[in-house]
């Protein structure tokens, strides 16, 4: 996230824009699927010229033959050439698929997007209509259509498109609803774009992946429906060749000659599969174009050789928690996220861990309770706490420490509470499961805890649900829960960042008072120098996973030892002349290499 990293990575040579077709061709499965459908299409179009026989020519001397030189795919019960029938049957099949797809696509996307975009009464009407259409038994509708329109495959396929559009409308509408509330839609509207431009450029472009997958799945279904209609002898009347008709012919002689089922069966199955695979390929190819990430690691300064591992410091006997040699990696990356961190937390001390995004400050503290986000692992590291030595690379072993030795409060107080349970339940469940209290004792203790965190009416609050309390109150509950099992150390990850300043002041006061009265040490992660100045005794500055410096707060503010710390402090507008150019960290960065 450093400014320099950004500009440098953006300046890195970028690959020329790759067309969607090229991206599609880079996927073997998509290439196979495309080749198959291409083959079917070309062969069906050229059927009159390349078919070895007339599809209706009967050769009663050569009935039900397997593959021979004369008949590559064999003959059917009337001695008709199967390959020729397959070729001639291709065009009506493909035409039908295109007809149904066009109808379903136009209706599904057009109505789905507008319903999701405009909402309101129009949307409600569409939703009801879609429910109605989806509740109709499709096969009955199709059979009636076919009987009215005298077995017209065109009419049947248009109806399939109509019926199928309902499902597509539903999916497209909900995708649009999700996109419609995005900020960039607001921004486009403010920029003066018309609704039509917003829908075509922003909404449809954003949900193109969903639309493509829906249409490709639908195409696969249409192949099956179409085969089914011909199988029933509707649509394409026998003896005209059709894939479904061929399957029907084969089914009637299945006991005598199973091979007849293979040519049409395999063709249909492969076509169904091909449509689905092309859909996946298109979606991934589209997404690849815009999901490509900037190489954040590109500019990470690479040292020529890794330094020899530093001798591990002996744990400090006066510390309540000592961390040694912590290394955290993202899976599959060689550049560590946290690189050899050591620190000691003294009894009764509040230690601030300060850094910007990507500094590894949150990962470092989460590793102590074994709660690293998925995709990140502790490669090395030891923690001495509560008289025990713990290997941090085995998070399951750390479970026993949670709550009893190490209490934790999180940044988003609301997100840390389950909306389905009352505040009281959140506390009693911890007290009963881990504290071994009875239901009644837990309830009493929960009320006590709420009073401890200065909640005025604990009985009332205990009965409420998370959405019925304010953010500041939720953080008090979070603190009460962290304190439930009387931990020796309280870990707080940006505990006030999501709160208003007046509430932040109250929460910081509360944490200070509780740390003193319960004789707890605190480990506080923050990016805010004001919070550090307010509550911490000592601060530890991290940059890209490495310790930059640590010092008592009085010293770190008055005489920062490291230029990075000094630059961060100067970048704070609090210390600047209003309106003047702020010194940025990048300025300092250009002057000297700052990697510790």
């Amino acid at each position, binding site marked *: *996230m450093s400014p320099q990293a950004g500009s440098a990575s*953006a300046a890195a040579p970028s690959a020329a824009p790759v067309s969607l077709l090229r991206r599609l061709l880079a996927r073997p499965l998509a290439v196979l699927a495309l080749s198959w459908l291409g083959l079917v299409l070309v062969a069906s179009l050229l059927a009159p010229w390349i078919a070895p026989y007339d599809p209706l020519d009967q050769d009663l001397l050569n009935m039900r033959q397997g593959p021979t030189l004369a008949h590559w795919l064999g003959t059917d019960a009337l001695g008709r050439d199967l390959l020729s029938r397959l070729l001639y049957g291709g065009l009506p099949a493909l035409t039908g698929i295109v007809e149904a797809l066009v109808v379903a696509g136009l209706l599904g996307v057009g109505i789905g997007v507008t319903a999701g975009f405009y909402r309101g009464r129009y949307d409600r009407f569409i939703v009801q209509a879609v429910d109605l259409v989806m509740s109709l038994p499709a096969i009955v509708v199709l059979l009636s259509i076919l009987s009215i329109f005298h077995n017209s495959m065109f009419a049947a396929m248009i109806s399939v498109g109509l019926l199928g559009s309902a499902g597509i409308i539903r999916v497209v509408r909900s995708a649009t609803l999700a996109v419609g509330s995005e900020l960039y839609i607001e921004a486009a*509207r403010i920029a003066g774009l*018309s609704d039509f431009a917003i829908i075509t450029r922003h909404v449809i472009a954003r949900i193109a992946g969903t639309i493509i997958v829906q249409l490709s799945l639908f195409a696969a279904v249409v192949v099956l429906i179409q085969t089914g209609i011909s199988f029933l002898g509707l649509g394409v009347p026998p003896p005209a060749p059709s894939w479904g008709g061929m399957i029907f012919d084969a089914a009637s002689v299945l006991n005598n000659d199973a091979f007849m089922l293979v040519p049409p069966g395999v063709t249909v199955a492969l076509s169904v599969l091909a449509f689905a695979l092309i859909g996946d390929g298109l979606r991934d190819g589209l997404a690849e174009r815009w999901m490509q990430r900037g190489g954040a690691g590109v500019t990470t300064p690479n040292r020529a050789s890794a330094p020899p591992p530093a001798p591990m410091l002996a744990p400090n006997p006066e510390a309540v928690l000592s961390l040694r040699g912590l290394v955290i990696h993202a899976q599959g990356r060689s550049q560590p996220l946290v690189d050899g961190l050591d620190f000691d937390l003294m009894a009764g001390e509040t230690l601030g861990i300060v850094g910007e995004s990507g500094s590894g400050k949150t990962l470092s503290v989460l590793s102590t309770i074994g709660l690293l986000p998925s995709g990140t692992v502790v490669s090395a590291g030891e923690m001495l706490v509560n008289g025990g030595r713990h290997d941090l690379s085995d998070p399951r072993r750390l479970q026993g420490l949670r709550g009893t030795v190490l209490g934790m409060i999180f940044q988003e107080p609301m997100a840390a509470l389950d909306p389905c349970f009352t505040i009281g339940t959140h506390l009693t469940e911890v007290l009963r499961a881990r504290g071994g209290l009875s239901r009644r004792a837990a309830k009493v203790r929960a009320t006590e805890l709420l009073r401890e965190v200065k909640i005025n009416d604990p009985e009332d609050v205990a009965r409420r649900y998370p959405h019925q309390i304010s953010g*500041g109150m939720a953080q008090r509950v979070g603190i009460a829960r962290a304190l439930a099992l009387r931990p020796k150390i309280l870990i707080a990850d940006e505990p006030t960042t999501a709160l208003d*300043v007046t509430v*932040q002041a109250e929460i910081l006061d509360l944490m200070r008072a509780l740390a003193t009265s319960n004789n707890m040490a605190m480990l506080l992660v923050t990016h805010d120098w004001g919070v550090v100045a307010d509550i911490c005794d000592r601060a530890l500055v991290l940059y890209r996973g490495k310790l930059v410096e640590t010092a008592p707060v009085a010293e770190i503010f008055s005489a920062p030892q490291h230029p990075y710390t000094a630059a*961060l402090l100067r970048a704070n507008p609090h210390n600047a002349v209003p*309106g003047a150019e*702020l010194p940025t960290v990048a300025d300092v960065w250009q002057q000297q290499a700052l990697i510790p």
Partner: protein
Amino acid sequence: MNDVAPLLMVKDLGVTYHLKGGRRFEALKGVNLSVAPGETVGLVGESGSGKTTIGRVILGQTMAQTGSIIFNGDDITHASRARRRALGRDIQVVFQDPYGSLNPVRSIGQTLAEPLIGEAGLTRTAIATRVADILQKVGMPADTASRYPAQFSGGQRQRIAIARAVIARPKLIICDEPVSALDLSVQAQVLNLLNQLQREMGLSLLFISHDLTVVRHVSRRTIVLYRGEIVEEGATESLHENPQHPYTKALLAAAPIPDPARQRARREQRHAPDLTPAQDR
């Protein structure tokens, strides 16, 4: 400041949200404010103060129940959709969240060209030149236009969002917490950029923030909003040095400052007199 006709006047603005279950929430109760051409006005308040709602009404995203918005002499409170679209060239916005405000599937060039659509007679090459110029102005490399948002960091995206806001040379930009999601070092760059663009282009900014320190850095005049009402308004320096309203005092006292000794003194002072705000509910 009052000798020029204001660019924006908000008169007696009232907005009420209708919540589920027939409850009503008065987000704004008769707010008056004005922004002069080329002026930056800071709008400070906590969550629920209505500061974001003011921005939304000016941008036409939320309808006002009472009062009026006068922009450049025109009443735009109930502007038609066509008028609103045309206003897009004059009034622009920078949102807080640099991740949500750029469409991930559109290239930066496509996104930046959008505000120019209303300008008649712009050729494709003219648009490309304007995009390249503005990217240079906000300090982004030239090949940015062909790239997608996922390739940029939060700070860079916010620069791009600012480029989109200024590309059509608007008169007023609503900045809704533009640096709240950014790291300190990046925040400094974005604040510098906003200050620089404001001077060079003579923009008016309505700078909405919860952070008094940030507002002090960018605006000469500050308005403090509390529960939908303006409680204090004045020159930023005097408001900081000598706050009049108890809420402004509480807000200033609550914000921790990066100086341990002075912060301790402030904390003790905060606890001594009966200035502590009522417990949050």
